[in-house]
């Protein structure tokens, strides 16, 4: 199994309520999905959030409707960071 690749999100994405974004992770090179790791009330959660890179959308909910909406509104920013990271390392086809 490939190693985990990650890109740091700390300080790059504004918090969404009590949600603090930590990093995006993936194992499969060129994977369509990455896992967005986050802390809720300063505690890192065991389960992350799925970011669908093709849809530029976070698919999962956190806490309540308001927090979920704020989290999903950060998808584009996280997408930009992940794609820039991959393009720099030539992990996209073009």
């Amino acid at each position, binding site marked *: 199994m490939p190693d985990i690749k990650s890109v740091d999100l700390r300080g790059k994405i504004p918090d969404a309520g009590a949600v603090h974004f930590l990093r995006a992770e993936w194992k*499969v090179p060129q994977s*369509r*999905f990455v896992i967005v790791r986050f802390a809720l009330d300063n505690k890192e959660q065991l389960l992350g959030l*799925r970011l669908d890179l*093709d849809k530029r*959308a976070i698919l999962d909910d956190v806490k309540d409707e308001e927090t979920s909406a704020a989290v999903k509104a950060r998808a584009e920013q996280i997408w930009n960071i992940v794609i820039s990271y991959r393009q720099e390392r030539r992990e996209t086809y*073009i």
Partner: protein
Amino acid sequence: MALFFKGVGVGTFLHGNDPRIIGIPPRAPAILYNAGVAMRHIARGTTVSPCVSLTRSYGVAYMYAREASLTFPSTTTPAYVYEVDIPDRLPAGIRLIDPVKAVAATLPSPVTSLSYFHDGDKDFILGVASPSLMATHLNAPVRQPPGSGGAARSAVLTLELETLVRALRDAEVLVVGTVPAAFVTVRHAIV
């Protein structure tokens, strides 16, 4: 009968609720199905939907299970691919939708000014099929006849074309309603 597959990532609702016992329910069964709902389900980030996605491709389901998890699959906590055997005659209360046919039925005549056709290069479709890996094709400026002028822009992409390409890419069908547990026959562990 036809065999379909469902990829289930670690940490998702179906990972903790075995589809062989509860079936595969949609997230929002009360929403009324129409072609617009199908298009947003397939091409957008909409998760609140009366539809359940299945695929004819084990490979697509495998990718989905392996990559679309909330934490990485492991030997102790694997992701799953379920085999779903759909009979020719469906029970009352569920419908099987071929999204390509459903979208095609909504398309206007080719001579209407707003159509599903793109106006980009032939590689534009590659960008639609894989927008995160082949963004260059998606965002390439359109070519115009010499001297025609106009604003610089990328090719026209409608929700209809995006849906058609993604549905074909993922060999995707939609079930409106809950897939009965009796249809879910086999489970494969994916690490």
